[in-house]
């Protein structure tokens, strides 16, 4: 029982740690499936996290915060779109620029609003997304194993967590079962094929980037108004890059993205619990070795089992019809 509930708690933590990466990786999926490299996930998430916390702090409403997050992140996605679609610019530079922009602008704007050096005030419970108890969670909790999993692992997360997990099957469905998905996959592989079929490459890519913007908005809002309760300078701490890595790791496919992010969540949760633990035979390991565990294991898994991941063929190249 004790061991079992420990595992459940750890998985619970893994889920929470996986969510922002999952949302960002799905955002990257839409973008890169459409042929646009998205190295600016980090920046969009950061911008969104700030907008969510700032607006929630001022209005007291997490919903308005979420809207603001989505607006800011989509706005940044549009900058990326203009640069990489209309101006055929270098998508990597554009992404790097967005990351810097978010880094500077969040603190600059935040400081001029709240005079707290870019941090936002702590959000009250009402201004955050609070845990949702799923129906019958308490009643079913008594049932061993299944009930406990339902009550403790599945129930009790905030709305964005459920949205994130729902976004995976929805993305898979959109990608493989709808007209939009067919065109999206096509435009990342061979935009000319789509163009000659009379579909606007530009419009489709814009749509993909907007969806990515919305998802990054959710990821950011989750960080500052769901999992956390305020914004802090550079609070994404590299999650956008982890998401990018997860996306490649999962070979740009939605369900594998879910597994990759969960794997990363589990490793991160395990890392927290393993700090300072004495291991049989080895003894105590430097805490930094434990902290690096998720990254080291990723490298090993990648080298050992995953094999080559092949990007959508047209990714990174601007679509140039006439030179």
């Amino acid at each position, binding site marked *: 029982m004790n061991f079992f509930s420990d595992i459940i708690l750890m998985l619970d933590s893994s889920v929470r740690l996986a969510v922002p990466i999952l949302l960002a990786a799905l955002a990257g999926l839409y973008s890169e499936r459409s042929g646009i490299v998205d190295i600016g996930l980090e920046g969009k998430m950061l911008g969104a996290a700030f907008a969510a916390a700032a607006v929630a702090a001022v209005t007291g409403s997490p919903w308005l915060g979420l809207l603001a997050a989505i607006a800011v992140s989509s706005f940044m996605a549009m*900058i990326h779109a*203009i*640069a*990489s679609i209309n*101006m*055929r*610019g*270098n*998508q*990597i*530079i*554009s992404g*790097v*620029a*967005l*990351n*810097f*922009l978010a*880094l*500077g*602008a969040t*603190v*600059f704007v935040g*400081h*001029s609003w709240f005079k707290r050096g*870019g941090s936002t005030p702590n959000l009250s419970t009402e201004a955050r997304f609070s845990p949702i108890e799923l129906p019958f969670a308490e009643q079913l909790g008594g049932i061993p194993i299944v009930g406990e999993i339902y009550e403790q692992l599945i129930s009790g997360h905030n709305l964005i967590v459920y949205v994130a997990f729902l976004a995976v099957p929805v993305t898979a469905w959109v990608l493989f079962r709808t007209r939009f998905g067919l065109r999206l996959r096509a435009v990342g592989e061979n935009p000319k094929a789509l163009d000659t079929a009379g579909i606007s490459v530009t419009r489709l890519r814009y749509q993909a980037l907007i969806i990515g913007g919305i998802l990054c908005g959710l990821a950011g809002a989750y960080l500052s108004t769901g999992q956390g309760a305020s914004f802090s300078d550079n609070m994404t701490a*590299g999650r956008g*890059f*982890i998401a*990018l*890595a997860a996306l*490649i*790791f999962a070979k740009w496919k939605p369900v594998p993205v879910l597994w990759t992010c969960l794997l990363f969540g589990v490793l991160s949760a395990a890392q927290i619990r393993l700090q300072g633990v004495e291991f049989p035979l080895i003894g105590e390991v*430097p*805490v*930094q*070795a434990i*902290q*690096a565990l998720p*990254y*080291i294991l*990723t*490298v090993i898994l*990648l*080298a*050992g089992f*995953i*094999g*080559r*991941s092949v990007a959508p063929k047209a990714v990174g190249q601007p679509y140039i019809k006439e030179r």
Partner: protein
Amino acid sequence: MRAQKPLPRWVDIALMPALNVALAFVVGGLAVAAVGEDPFRAMQVLIFGAFGYGEGWGFTLHFATSFVFTGLAVAVAYHAGLFNIGGEGQAYVAGLGAIMVALWLDQTHWVFVLVGSTLAAMTFGAIWAMIPGYLQAKRGSHIVITTIMFNFIASAFMSYMLAQVITRPGANAETETIAETGRLPLLSEYFSAFTYSPLNITFFIGILALIFVYVLIWRTKLGYQIRTLGANPEAARYAGISAVAIIIIVMAISGALAGLMAVNEAVGVQKRLGVGYVQGFGFVGIAVAFMGRAHPIGIALAALLFGALYQGGQELAFVMPSVSSDLVVVIQALVILFTGAMSEMFKPVLLRLFNRGNGEPEPAGD
């Protein structure tokens, strides 16, 4: 519409970038105005701070030197078709090698420190980059993931080394300081104009690195093979070029270049190694490399621009306290955006301007 003449070369390489930088300043200026300061004076302060006097120049060039290293690192890998996001970690780990050798030799003479720490920095940086290179070449691990992971691993590794292994007791996770005898000379010792600036002898290594990369990429057979692999891997296979060997070599060179930042920053200025000394310069290198179109001349210019923004920005924050360092980061982002990602923004307008009332159409065909 008649057939259009292409833009004159000077428009392409000078006027357009200048317009883009100007636009970045206009937008940045709006932000400056938003905090109630005069944007024109802000720009004046920024430019004067970066280029207006010797000390300013010294700082600008000092930062530019670091950016040259991290920028070249990204560029060299890019020529082989590899996107090395790991400059940050490579420079960090290189700092370990550089400082260890510097501390070992610092009782001798700075020449030994310079040579020793340069070699050590390059070696450590090369090794840290070669592992992702090897994994990509042999195991097909995507270089982007591996280099991202190696940044995190470097951070953990260096945290351990600095807090527990080569740490100076009583200090905060940093190494001993290099003794006076072993300190790299500042250029201000020879040119009084640079007085008080951290510009040091590594600047010349930066210039050598630029020349080296130019020669390597465009004037050697290895460089030719690197470019072939990067531009068309299938053609490289046809030509009998070993992708495995090239990838590993290129990543080693790339890491070595990133590592040189340690000589400039850790050995040259801070004279010891502390936690997080790279300060994001590895990521700035990505912007510098792409803005410089992976060409040494372009990289030198982009690095200079960024050096100027760092130095001028600091001056700005000093003179106008309400323009905080965060606003300077915003201006930097705008410069990256407009000159890097939206570099062709003015092209249609300029094409129309330059084609007004002329243009005999050329016939098609060969």
